[in-house]
């Protein structure tokens, strides 16, 4: 295992550029999750690392080797595919041992390594089973064992869990993470499930339209998204453009002259159905009054849609509320992700990050 260093990488299909100026370092033994919406270029990035998509600019280092111009078979970077990509005409043991056979390892060494891997991925005793006779979860574990068998420098996984059903997914997710800790392999895992990324990865890289928007620990990405896209993608689905020119909204921040994008999560908003009775004890960064539009049961709570003017805000609440109940929402100041809007006339000016905490409080209703 070695660290992976991607420098100014540019890649695409033919003339179509998909990835632009990607810089990313995966430390030895670290697992980084590549998170992004469909079509943003996650698979393309893994394919470029493995040598299935040509790199038009930049360099990839696996350890100290520059590999971007090597053919796929010389890179020593292996992939676990979304579709498993097992060879149906071979047994489990043959699938796992294939890479070693290609390297002309001795029969006995191959057998020993295969047995070891079968034990690691908890498939002992299935050596001579045809892979077509396995369940999805078992197949994915064979694929993992096969990719690990040759001790690659870097392991990349392309949505390894997306073909599994919810329950199996949780257990395989757990197993991959445990294995990664135990064996310490350097890996890059692609997912579009934010929870998966938070749970499995040491760090997360959020990808959007072929560019990395933010790299950081799961906590950083979750609590301090650096762009509106990351905030939205990490589940802060309520979005308000400030100023709203609506009395129902009351913002407790400074620099109201600026145009702002405000994001917050449904679980961080506190809903009170009787606005006058309980007054705000805490410093609400944003107060919104509106009417209940819909209430949906979610098991441990209700998700309530509150209508305020042209906005519909999602809030978690512990009780069911009838329609048209007047409701007041308070969102604490540190749960707000606030971004200064890009000025329309000066495109070159980058989006400024306005940390809600660092702002001077200033009541503006």
């Amino acid at each position: 295992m070695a660290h992976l260093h991607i420098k100014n990488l540019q890649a695409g299909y033919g003339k179509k550029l998909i990835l632009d100026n990607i810089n990313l370092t995966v430390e030895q033994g670290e697992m980084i999750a590549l998170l992004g919406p469909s079509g943003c270029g996650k698979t393309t990035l893994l394919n470029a690392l493995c040598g299935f998509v040509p790199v038009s600019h930049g360099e990839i280092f696996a350890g100290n080797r520059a590999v971007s111009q090597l053919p796929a078979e010389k890179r020593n970077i292996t992939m676990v595919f979304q579709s498993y990509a097992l060879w149906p005409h071979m047994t489990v043991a043959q699938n796992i041992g294939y890479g070693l056979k290609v390297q002309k390892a001795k029969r006995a060494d191959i057998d020993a390594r295969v047995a070891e891997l079968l034990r690691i991925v908890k498939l002992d005793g299935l050596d001579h089973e045809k892979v077509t006779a396995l369940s999805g979860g078992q197949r994915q574990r064979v694929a993992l064992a096969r990719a690990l068998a040759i001790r690659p420098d870097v392991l990349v996984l392309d949505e390894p869990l997306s073909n599994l059903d919810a329950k199996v997914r949780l257990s395989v997710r757990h197993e991959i993470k445990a294995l990664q800790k135990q064996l310490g392999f350097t890996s890059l895992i692609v997912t579009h499930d934010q929870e998966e990324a938070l749970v499995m990865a040491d760090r997360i890289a959020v990808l959007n339209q072929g560019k990395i928007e933010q790299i950081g620990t799961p906590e950083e990405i979750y609590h301090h998204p650096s762009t509106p896209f990351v905030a939205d993608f990490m589940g802060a689905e309520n979005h308000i453009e400030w100023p709203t020119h609506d009395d129902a909204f009351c913002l407790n921040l400074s620099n109201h002259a600026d145009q702002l994008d405000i994001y917050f999560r449904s679980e961080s908003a506190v809903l009170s159905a009787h606005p006058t009775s309980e007054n705000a004890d805490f410093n609400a960064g944003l107060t919104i009054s509106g009417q209940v539009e819909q209430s949906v049961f979610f098991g441990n709570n209700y998700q309530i849609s509150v209508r305020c003017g042209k906005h519909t805000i999602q809030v978690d609440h512990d009780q069911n509320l009838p329609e048209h109940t007047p409701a007041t929402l308070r969102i604490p100041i540190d749960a707000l992700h606030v971004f200064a809007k890009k000025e329309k006339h000066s495109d070159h000016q980058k989006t400024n990050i306005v940390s809600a905490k660092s702002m001077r409080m200033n009541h503006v209703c």
Partner: protein
Amino acid sequence: MRQTTSHNLLKNHLWLIAPAALMVGIFFLYPLCFSLYSAITLDSGEFTLTHLNKAFELYSKDILFTIIIVLISVAILAVLSITIAALITLSPFRSLSKILGFLYRLPLFIPFIVTAQMMRSFLAKNGLMNNAFVASGLLTPMDTVSFLGWSGIIITFVWKQLAFSTLLISGAMAALDDSQIRAARNLGASRLRILFQIILPQITPTLGVAMVLSIVTMMSVLSVPLMIGTGSPTMMTADMAFRINSYGDYHVANALGLVSYCICAGLAWFYLRQNLKEKGAN
């Protein structure tokens, strides 16, 4: 209740498939049965083996010749079409494989008799190929040899059937999940190794179908042995035509037909058995 309705349905709509069934019966089953019947009966209708005896006596050499020609052709065919299909699927040069993917289909649209005529003017002693060699100074007119004869027949068969079998085989290769090949590559396997260890084992059924169908086609072509063969030994189709045209001897012609039918059936049986064995192993 349900069964009776479906029964009625069948009864009422039987006439829908009647035309097709009738066509198969009149134009295929009846002639086939009649030809088999004619091969083993006298004019009076009594059972006899004399026609078969005669066929073997007169034409055993040609039967052997036919089998050898067909087997050699099919072996060359398999090698060539696998090579072309593999180049199309695995080649890193996209434009080359695109051109190849277009070119190999051309013979598909040329009938056997035209192919035979083309090959005749191409392969003859003073044909196109030798003239080209002479013109380019590679050969002198004295050194040229005619390829008409057994080698010409093989070349023509292979040339004509190549398109068909490559079409089937490259189709089967394209149907394999691309990530299977990628998985092998990033474990370090070369393209040749991938062809033999990953791709071919998975497409053997298709390869078998392509080869059996090609054999049946080659066994049934008359124009090629007539136009490119040298007369003796020749292929069984030419003998059949000869029996009928020169002697009006349908019995021996049908006996020869029975023999070629048995050869095809034997090969098909061999293929099916092989296939079943593999299924059983799975």
